[in-house]
């Protein structure tokens, strides 16, 4: 196809940007470059996603790079998350520069790793070869590890160590799974170059050997599940998310988890095809989803730290998406939709808590009382985004959760339904209690002041508006894209 060449610039652009960040001589300039280039790249990604939306699958390098509806939908989410986070990073670190907490060396390291991890995440989406997809996931761990401890403190080192070890080992399991998938395809007699190409495997999923494929899927679920923060493999997640600088937390929560879930989505049709569409793989995914929801709800109830609250909320929402995938049918569509809604809302929540945290010098929600008056913009952003996250109508998250519930009812999965409702209710109570206390409450006097630019206002308004819009009206092309993506995973609406 004529537009195939476009896959190359979206990979080379961030690499060049990373290089550029290393050559700049002042932290302000680096932040400017990050904001400008990051936003530009996001626009480019958006354009590519729209191209796929209208033209269909793009592929290059003899099908080793492929962008179909599923991956371009995720590319769209990534574009939004990365663009917004890049803009926000400038605001966030400018405050640190003003307080002498961020020097040139930090800036260069941040800029290079920021674009580097972005490249890794996009390459996960672009690689049609399942082995290279794994390489991409592992690369995101390695590149973001040092972003987590951008400020070297005992706590951030501890978080980084756990993140590095748990995710590396977890993802190693995923590689065992990948090898087993290749083994299950041995009987197809493929050439070595084609062994792990997803398009080839998907085309003959029914002929993969079921035994190794089942074993493979267990390993893959544990491996990528670790990276996606599904309980009970989530132990690294709250630490890493709460210690990382806020823009990094936003991109970890907003897209990196989704990238790992995306890998699981790729394997679902393979395992379902190999085991005769009996729902064997889906059942496992559903189980993990439920465990994640319940565990996250329990931890949210007793949480005081705002960023940890959001981190556990990510565990919960990853669980919800997994539930959607596991239920199948309309649930798959709803899960995909939920992924986008969650990412938009979660980055807004992180931006708000990050700015409030800078203002108050802590992320403890109990010490953040009166945030709404202290900083109307971020206070509002935090409060409303938490409201949306816990599922308030008529925002998009409420709508997608409703769709997942519909799928559960449709499948007559009453246990899933009950657990979903119970966990959601717990989260609703726990999070709302904390958010109200933080937003209103007795105002705490703090010495620091903070200025907000027009971009910050646009970020908050834009995210909230988008969430409201998506809740009320889903544009037809986007809807079509999500439906085709759901069909790729195997959900038939």
């Amino acid at each position, binding site marked *: 196809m004529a537009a195939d060449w476009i896959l190359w610039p979206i990979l080379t652009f961030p690499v060049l940007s990373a290089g550029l960040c290393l050559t700049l001589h002042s932290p302000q300039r680096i932040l400017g470059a990050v904001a400008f280039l990051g936003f530009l790249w996001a626009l480019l990604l958006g354009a590519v996603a729209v191209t796929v939306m209208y033209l269909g699958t793009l592929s290059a390098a003899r099908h*080793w790079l492929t962008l179909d509806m599923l991956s371009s939908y995720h590319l769209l989410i990534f574009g939004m998350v990365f663009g917004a986070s890049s803009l926000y990073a400038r605001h966030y670190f400018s405050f640190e520069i003003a307080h002498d907490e961020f020097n040139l060396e930090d800036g260069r390291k941040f800029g290079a790793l920021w674009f580097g991890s972005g490249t890794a995440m996009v390459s996960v989406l672009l690689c049609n*070869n399942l*082995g*290279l997809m*794994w*390489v991409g996931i*592992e*690369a995101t*761990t*390695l590149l973001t*590890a*040092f972003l987590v*401890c951008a400020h*070297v*403190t*005992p*706590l951030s*080192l*501890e*978080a*980084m*160590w*756990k993140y*590095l*070890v748990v995710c*590396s*080992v977890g993802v*190693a399991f995923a*590689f*065992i799974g990948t*090898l*087993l998938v*290749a*083994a*299950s395809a*041995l*009987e197809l007699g493929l050439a*070595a*170059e084609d*062994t*792990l190409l997803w398009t080839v495997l998907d085309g003959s999923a029914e002929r993969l*050997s079921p*035994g*190794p494929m089942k*074993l493979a899927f267990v390993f893959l679920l544990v491996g990528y599940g670790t990276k996606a923060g599904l309980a009970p493999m989530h132990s690294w997640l*709250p*630490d890493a998310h*709460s*210690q990382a600088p806020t823009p990094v937390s936003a991109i970890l929560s907003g897209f990196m988890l989704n990238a790992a879930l995306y890998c699981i989505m790729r394997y679902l049709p393979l395992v379902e095809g190999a085991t005769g569409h009996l729902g064997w793989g889906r059942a496992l995914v559903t189980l993990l989803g439920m465990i994640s929801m319940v565990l996250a709800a329990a*931890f949210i109830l*007793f*949480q005081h730290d705002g960023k*940890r609250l959001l981190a556990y909320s990510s565990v919960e929402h990853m669980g919800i998406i997994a539930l959607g995938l596991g239920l199948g049918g309309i649930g798959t569509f709803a899960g995909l939709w939920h992924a986008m809604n969650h990412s938009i809302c979660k980055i807004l929540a992180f931006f708000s808590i990050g700015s409030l945290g800078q203002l108050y010098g802590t992320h403890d929600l109990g010490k953040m009382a009166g945030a709404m008056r202290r900083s109307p913009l971020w206070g509002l952003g935090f409060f409303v985004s938490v409201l949306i996250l816990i599922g308030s109508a008529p925002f998009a998250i409420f709508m997608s959760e409703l769709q997942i519930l519909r799928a559960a009812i449709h499948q007559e999965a009453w246990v899933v339904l009950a657990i979903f409702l119970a966990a959601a209710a717990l989260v609703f109570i726990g999070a709302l209690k904390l958010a109200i206390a933080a937003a209103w409450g007795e105002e705490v006097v703090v010495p620091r002041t903070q200025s907000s630019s027009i971009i910050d206002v646009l970020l908050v308004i834009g995210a909230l508006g988008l969430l409201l819009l998506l809740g009320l009206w889903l544009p037809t092309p986007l809807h079509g894209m999500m439906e085709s993506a759901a069909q790729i995973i195997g959900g038939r609406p």
Partner: protein
Amino acid sequence: MNHPSLIEAVLVTVVLTNLQLLGSSRLKICIHMVGLQGIVAGLLPVLLDHEANPLRAWLLVVGSVAIKGIVFPKLLLRVLRDAGVCREVEPFVGYILSLLAAVSALMFSLWMGSTLVLPQAPVGTTLMAPVGFTTILVGLLVIITRRKAISQVIGYVVVENGIYIFGVALVGGVPMLVELGVLMDAFVAVFLMGIAVYKISREFDHIDVDRLNRMQG
């Protein structure tokens, strides 16, 4: 040139390095064992010789032996020296229990290898996949039961070695690009973990992972 007895010798060496790794109390010996394991495991593709392209196999062997057999041990020894840590392993689980666990892991892997209907691996002995799996389990055991952060890096390398053997046994031919990517990732991971251990030792004055527990809930 398919050498069943040589392959067997290599696999036995791998198992013996695993045992020595679990049984020895010196971090230095552990590091040397990991290096030895990397070298002998790296030789497997040429011994198997089911490669249509011998050049490819040799390239892979040179790459993995250089990284796993030479670079990793050098790096780890350097970290050990720079971090200035006590050279004892200090496991949570005793040496004898670890050894017995390793033997049980081997038994389990063999049992699994015999019951599980894996598609006929291209070539190689029936022992290869179980030994690979055992090595993975031993690596996990090292990660879980050892106190020093550097032991976890060692355990990670052992897991990587195990996956490598497992992969050679199971699939034989994964595309070159993927192999190189995996090797590259392992290299960077160990490199970063080494830096992290060093930073932890600077910041905390120790590298005991059981004392890295400030964040809870």
